[in-house]
């Protein structure tokens, strides 16, 4: 199989997955403080093969296969980060991050606030459904961390953003959870710049401009929104797709600018509906953009259930382009 490692510095198309590998490889080459920890990331190259070849290239002092113990791994990364290293931890699946919740929330997130000790580390969390993973290999756990001050959260939707945001996360002086969407790993490709670049944390991007309705989303849902936009274009409903890219700190300016232009907003996420990021953005729009709104702020999100396994159930669970189309038609009528 082809990995990002082999493809670094070439100019042909790379997948989202290869973009992540390239970012890790380039940052490890650039900065000897960067090292990797995780389950099965060494000889096996990781459950998704993102670190294939890294053990041979960087050795077992910088590519550490760990015991199966997420709390211990994250705790150790925190300690190493405080001593001046730049650990990048791989959660085999984002779902397993619940085992490390305490270390992330109580230690990593509060450390600098409490006693001024920076914790520059990255936790890579392969998240999201559509891959027949069932309740423990499909979760979108970003909402848990969205409510916890001290963490930065990013969730790229394209190979360009995947690479640039991971590099920015590794260089950031704070703990960053990097939500990489498993559904996108091998499904999208792009030609990336050959020179070093980052995508700054805290900057959303309008992935499609349109004047009728703002769809505010992130991760794999960006592509769903773009698909819905193509359908709605024929009906003269122009969606503007705002890709948050960073969830914390939220780029309110870009969100507000879009909504003040379109006067209508749909929040779209794959995470459960209740208490999700869409709810927070809806509240922000009510507080700060009320005068600009010409209709209710809508949410298209997964129902409040675990992610089911069986194909018809998972298809029912995941937001679909048709859900966005229906919501947009309803909202456009206001």
């Amino acid at each position: 199989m082809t990995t990002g490692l082999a493809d670094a510095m070439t100019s042909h198309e790379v997948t989202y997955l290869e973009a992540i590998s390239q970012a890790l490889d380039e940052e490890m080459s650039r900065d000897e403080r960067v090292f990797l920890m995780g389950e099965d990331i060494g000889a096996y190259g990781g459950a998704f093969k993102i670190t294939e070849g890294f053990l041979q290239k960087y050795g077992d002092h910088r590519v550490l296969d760990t015991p199966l113990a997420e709390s211990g791994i994250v705790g150790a990364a925190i300690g190493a980060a405080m001593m001046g290293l730049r650990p990048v931890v791989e959660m085999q699946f984002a779902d397993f991050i619940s085992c490390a919740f305490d270390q992330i929330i109580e230690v990593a997130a509060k450390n600098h606030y409490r006693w001024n000790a920076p914790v520059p580390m990255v936790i890579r969390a392969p998240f999201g459904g559509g891959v027949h993973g069932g309740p423990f290999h499909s979760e979108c756990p970003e909402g848990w961390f969205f409510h916890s001050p001290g963490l930065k959260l990013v969730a790229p939707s394209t190979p360009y953003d995947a690479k640039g945001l991971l590099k920015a996360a590794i260089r950031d002086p704070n703990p960053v959870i990097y939500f990489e969407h498993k559904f996108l790993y091998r499904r999208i490709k792009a030609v990336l710049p050959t020179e070093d670049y980052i995508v700054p944390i805290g900057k959303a991007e309008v992935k499609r401009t349109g004047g009728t309705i703002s769809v505010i989303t992130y991760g794999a849902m960006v592509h769903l929104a773009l698909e819905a936009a193509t359908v709605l274009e024929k009906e003269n409903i122009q969606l503007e797709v705002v890709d948050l890219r960073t969830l914390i700190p939220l780029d309110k300016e870009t969100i507000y600018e879009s909504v003040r232009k379109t006067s209508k907003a749909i929040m779209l996420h794959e995470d459960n509906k209740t208490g999700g990021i869409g709810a927070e953005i809806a509240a922000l729009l009510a507080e700060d953009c009320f005068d600009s709104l010409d209709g209710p702020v809508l949410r298209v999100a997964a129902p409040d259930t675990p992610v089911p396994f069986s194909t018809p159930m998972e298809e029912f669970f995941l937001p679909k382009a048709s859900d966005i189309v229906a919501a947009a038609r309803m909202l456009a009528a206001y």
Partner: protein
Amino acid sequence: MDLSVVAKDITRTDLLHLYYYLQLTRTLENRITALYRQGRIVGGVYTSHGMEAIAVGYAFALQSQDVIAPYHRDMGAFLIRGITPGEVIAQYLGKRTGPTKGKDGNVHIGDLKRGVIGFVSHLADNLPVATGAALAFHIRGEPHVVVTNTGDGGTSRGDFHEAMNFAAVRKLPVVFFCNNNQYAYSTPVRNQMAVANVADRATGYGMPAEIVDGNDVAAVYLAARRAIQKARSGGGPTFLECKTMRMHGHSEHDPAKYVPQALLDEWKKKDPIVKAEAMLKTLGYADEAYFHDIEERVKKEVDAGVEWAEQSPLPDGRETLDGVFATEAEVAS
């Protein structure tokens, strides 16, 4: 502890320093308790009363670039690492001059410049963190050691297991202390674990362990020194169970009526300061007049600390909003 071994392995100067830190710890914590009873300190007060020898013993065995990840009964370790009595009181009073500038209270003291990793209330959380600090030394090939500590109760947590296991697998330069003071809040050790000694837990990780008299500062110091030297020279981690007794409540609000009086009476005779004084007298290193001088000296130091802390400013309420995130400049070096 065999005094001929003490005489051979520890210098008189070091023993007198150990004694000084025992007294400074006791006097400072007694003052904190008094301030709490007067209502001048709000929030929890956690002391190492009767257990001072553990933190004093292990911290004294460390070198300047080593790191500690202490728990809440390790006052002596803070003092040895250079946190002053004034800073400790300022922390308890929520003053801006405390190590956390009012953001956190009591013994949640951290300062990387002095090699102190801040304590987290969730017991055993600092054990994986200590393991990670040791991992950084291991990766960089630096000859530094990390010492961490937790109570008997803390060893029931998964983080204890995960840290011990990881440290043993990677042979990391970390020494795990356990202050077995027989009670985790109100829960006696027999309801905490089915093994006879906490040290028995280490076997499951393939980690060498020792049981130490936690009220004998010379014994703790020598055991710490051996384990630290072993870790420094690449020999991997060690687990040291220090047997002791918590002579006060979990926190100063807790009268600890669940602890049998006979047990406290028995352990009062083994008080670490009384023990240290007997040892120093038998070795001919010090006499009552010396002990009295040290008591006066540490009282003055604590008085000065209280005065400085009380005169220090409180933070402004708006400082609540500062410091959630670190800046680039802080990690630039």
